[in-house]
């Protein structure tokens, strides 16, 4: 069976309205200017840093010393480790996430509404907390899992050791699986089931239908998620530094961290050169993705009415339920249970009755610094996520639904921030914003943080929306134009209206990304603009992991509320499609 139904390949040529000939040129120029400032400008500062013996503002000479260090055995080994770890964890995560998304969106598995919220929870927990929880559960010496294992079997060899390659990959998977799940689940839900029905009626088995129709139609969304997750894996820091560094497993980000923070004089030239090397690798991946998907259509939401349905699994639905429950138990119940428990004891991991306390909740409640940072973070989160999704929607439209000149440049500009490891990009923002003319009041204000967050979130916003747009037939859009709607009307009332479940997911991803972002925040905040991630770092370094647990739980409650509201709206929306 062919992969897709090619409904139309005619490019959209909007006319009149806001984007007339001159309006379009102005709009494109403005869009390029905004994206250039957000991504190209900090990147240019970093590129200068990689070619200059000293950072911007200091006397030095231009040379290639930074790039020469890439060839060192240490860096090459880190590069191989990074690619291997990220590739393995992405393949495993995509397989698991696609399975979970299919179970939740396309089967009659019991309790799938609740499961959908629960299995996405790990993504929103600060990584340092789950790392601590897993270090307690899975260390070879006294980890709870190994103690239980030894007691049951009488063996001395531990069952698991999280301080290993396996530990690094497992910890990363807890973030990438729900991340990919969030990106693909709505695409599964919004797919026209008549295609699957046609497959079944033509004699294909359930598995053949899943693999050759459902999964194949999900290719753009899945490969987008794969690429996003693979790149994020290459930039991942916490898992490697926590579980890898103690046993000599180094990756690109730990090498960069060492260059910046562990030497007498920070070596910005090497670290930025390493960042650009990682970026070049990721760029190759994007080219590959574009080649893989180029010229194929994946339209599943058309102008024709359809009623989404679910596959009846019979008794098998309890097996699929068990898969979801096991994922939830392993990635949420175990670590979050430990967080919750620890937040009520004087010390994380010491569960003695005489250490029961509510002091950590009181300390957080009475912490003025936290409330100030919480207010700033909420403001930045709401404004940042909304602005990022608005920008992402426009960029995705221009790059996927038009043939306008300059759209490839826009696509690349929007992608750039995602391809540079966060801790390097943070330095780019610092250098870029601090050296702006003083008459542009960005450095030292909330604007600096907001602009950095928008830049960091735009690639996700673009991928989420373009994945959703790719599923919407162009005939609906043309129909809108034929009936006299302008560019903005069509974008808002057709595309965004149809793709809005994906918008909601993107908004939540970006909002919580802002809550967690530290690399740029720590370099851009000033005393009046402190944010939650900085407060959490202070608590952690100050030896207060229990208070960080309380903050982690507050974030989880927020996630539950957001997701519940979002899914309620999605359910309502789907029923009206």
């Amino acid at each position, binding site marked *: 069976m062919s992969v897709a139904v090619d409904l139309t390949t005619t490019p959209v040529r909007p006319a009149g309205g806001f984007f007339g000939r001159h309006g379009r040129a102005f709009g494109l120029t403005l869009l390029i200017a905004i994206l250039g400032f957000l991504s190209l400008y900090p990147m240019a500062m970093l590129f200068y840093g990689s070619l200059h013996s000293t950072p911007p503002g200091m006397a030095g000479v231009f040379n290639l010393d930074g790039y020469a260090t890439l060839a060192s055995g240490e860096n090459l080994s880190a590069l191989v480790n990074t690619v291997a770890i990220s590739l393995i964890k992405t393949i495993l995560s995509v397989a698991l996430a696609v399975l979970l998304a299919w179970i939740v969106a396309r089967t009659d598995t019991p309790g799938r509404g609740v499961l959908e919220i629960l299995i996405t929870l790990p993504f929103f927990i600060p990584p340092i907390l789950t790392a601590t929880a897993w270090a307690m559960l899975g260390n070879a010496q006294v980890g709870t899992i190994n103690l239980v294992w030894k007691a049951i079997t009488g063996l001395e060899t531990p069952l698991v050791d999280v301080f290993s390659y396996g530990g690094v990959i497992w910890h990363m998977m807890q973030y990438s699986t729900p991340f990919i799940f969030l990106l693909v689940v709505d695409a599964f839900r919004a797919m026209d089931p008549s295609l699957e029905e046609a497959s079944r009626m033509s004699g294909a088995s359930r598995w053949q239908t899943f693999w050759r129709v459902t999964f194949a139609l999900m290719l753009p969304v899945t490969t987008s998620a794969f690429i996003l997750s693979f790149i994020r894996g290459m930039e991942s820091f916490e898992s490697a530094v926590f579980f890898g560094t103690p046993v000599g497993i180094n990756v690109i980000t730990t090498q960069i961290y060492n260059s910046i923070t562990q030497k007498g004089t920070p070596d910005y030239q090497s670290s930025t050169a390493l960042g650009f090397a990682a970026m070049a690798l990721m760029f190759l991946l994007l080219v590959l993705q574009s080649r893989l998907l180029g010229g194929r259509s994946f339209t599943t939401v058309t102008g024709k009415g359809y009623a989404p349905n679910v596959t009846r699994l019979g008794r098998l639905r309890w097996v699929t339920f068990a898969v979801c429950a096991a994922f939830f138990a392993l990635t949420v119940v175990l670590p979050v249970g430990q967080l919750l428990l620890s937040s009520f004891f004087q010390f994380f991991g*010491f569960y003695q009755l005489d250490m029961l306390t509510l002091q950590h909740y009181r300390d957080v409640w009475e912490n003025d610094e936290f409330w100030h940072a919480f207010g700033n973070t909420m403001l930045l989160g709401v404004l940042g996520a909304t602005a990022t999704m608005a920008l992402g929607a426009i960029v995705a439209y221009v790059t996927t639904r038009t043939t306008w000149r300059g759209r490839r440049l826009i696509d690349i500009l929007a992608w750039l921030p995602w391809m540079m490891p966060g801790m390097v990009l943070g330095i780019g923002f610092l250098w870029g914003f601090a050296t702006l003319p003083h008459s542009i009041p960005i450095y030292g204000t909330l604007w600096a943080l907001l602009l950095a967050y928008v830049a960091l979130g735009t690639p996700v916003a673009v991928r989420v929306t373009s994945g959703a747009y790719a599923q919407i037939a162009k005939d609906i859009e043309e129909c809108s134009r034929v009936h006299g709607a302008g560019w903005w009307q069509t974008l808002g009332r057709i595309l965004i209206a149809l793709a809005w479940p994906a918008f909601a997911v993107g908004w939540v991803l970006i909002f919580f990304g802002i809550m967690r972002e530290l690399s740029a925040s720590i370099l851009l905040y*000033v005393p009046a603009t402190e944010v939650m991630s900085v407060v959490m770092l202070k608590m952690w370094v100050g030896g207060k992991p229990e208070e960080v647990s309380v903050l982690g739980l507050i974030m989880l409650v927020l996630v539950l509320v957001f997701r519940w509201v979002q899914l309620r709206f999605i359910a309502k929306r789907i029923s009206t499609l």
Partner: protein
Amino acid sequence: MLRRTVLGGLAASTAIVRSAAAQDADWQKLVDAARKEGKVVIYTASIGSPFHKVVFKAFEAKYGIKIELLEARASEVRERVRVEQSAGRFLGDLHHNGSTTTWLMTQDGNFQPHGPLPNLKNIEPPYEASEMSIPAEVISYCLMVNKNMVKPGDEPKAWKDILDPKWAGKILSDDYRALGGGAVFFMVMYDSFGKEFHEKLAAQKPVFSRDIANSERRVARGEFPLYIPFSLQDFNNLKGLPVKPIVPAEGRPYVRFDLSMLKNAPHPNATRLFMNFYLEPEQQLVFGNAGYNPVVKGVVEKTSEEIRPHLATKAMGTTTPSKQDAMLALAKEIYK
């Protein structure tokens, strides 16, 4: 003769009294100017310390001058200062960081002289002020053992005891190949016992982690029986857990934190007033009771009985900033 001596003495005393009075008046002018400035912006590498906040609040209460704090890791603070100053943005007043970073930043010209401060006379040797910086407080390093895993008779009494094969694979440590406590430990042990000490320690296969607060908890939970180098001031966070700090017989490596006035500080008078305030015995006692070694005279004696025996030990040595990069390279070579 006697009359001349008496008159001479009187004249001298009067001059001293006048001079002291003039100094008092000058200082009062500085206090008034500081109050008008209204705040001090501190860039510090001491992240999340509750003890520093006690001193900041005491200053705010005494003078009505607000303290604003920017906390980040040592290299991040340094880069913030560097890039801000090179862009002509002078937002910070006071820099609080380890002596190595302070030394490097002094070479870069990031500071300005703090001028005379009355409390400089309180400073206790071997700590001393320079034209650009004053000592703030001292982090002292020792060993930490898990009391449930190490019997009193088996506890290491000297630094060389950790080379005993019985500790092989049982030592959790801050990384010697990175700037921080591990690097201080490496340099002081190298200076005291030579390369051989480190070669033998490397054979013990210590496990490195840079997450200090979490490493201490791992030892408390029983993953490892021994942690080095343990910062004495962290003991306060671990009270109630089965751990014990031990200062070995040879003494304790230490690292000094410094205060330096940033170039073109927007609130110079308030900054000088705060630097002087920091050197008052009352404020240093806050740090002493927290487990930091105070830098002024007569404070260790007043610290709590629990912490005093650890503080009143021999200062074994500290880092030499100019040797830091070579030492980090050597550590990398020995601990592969």
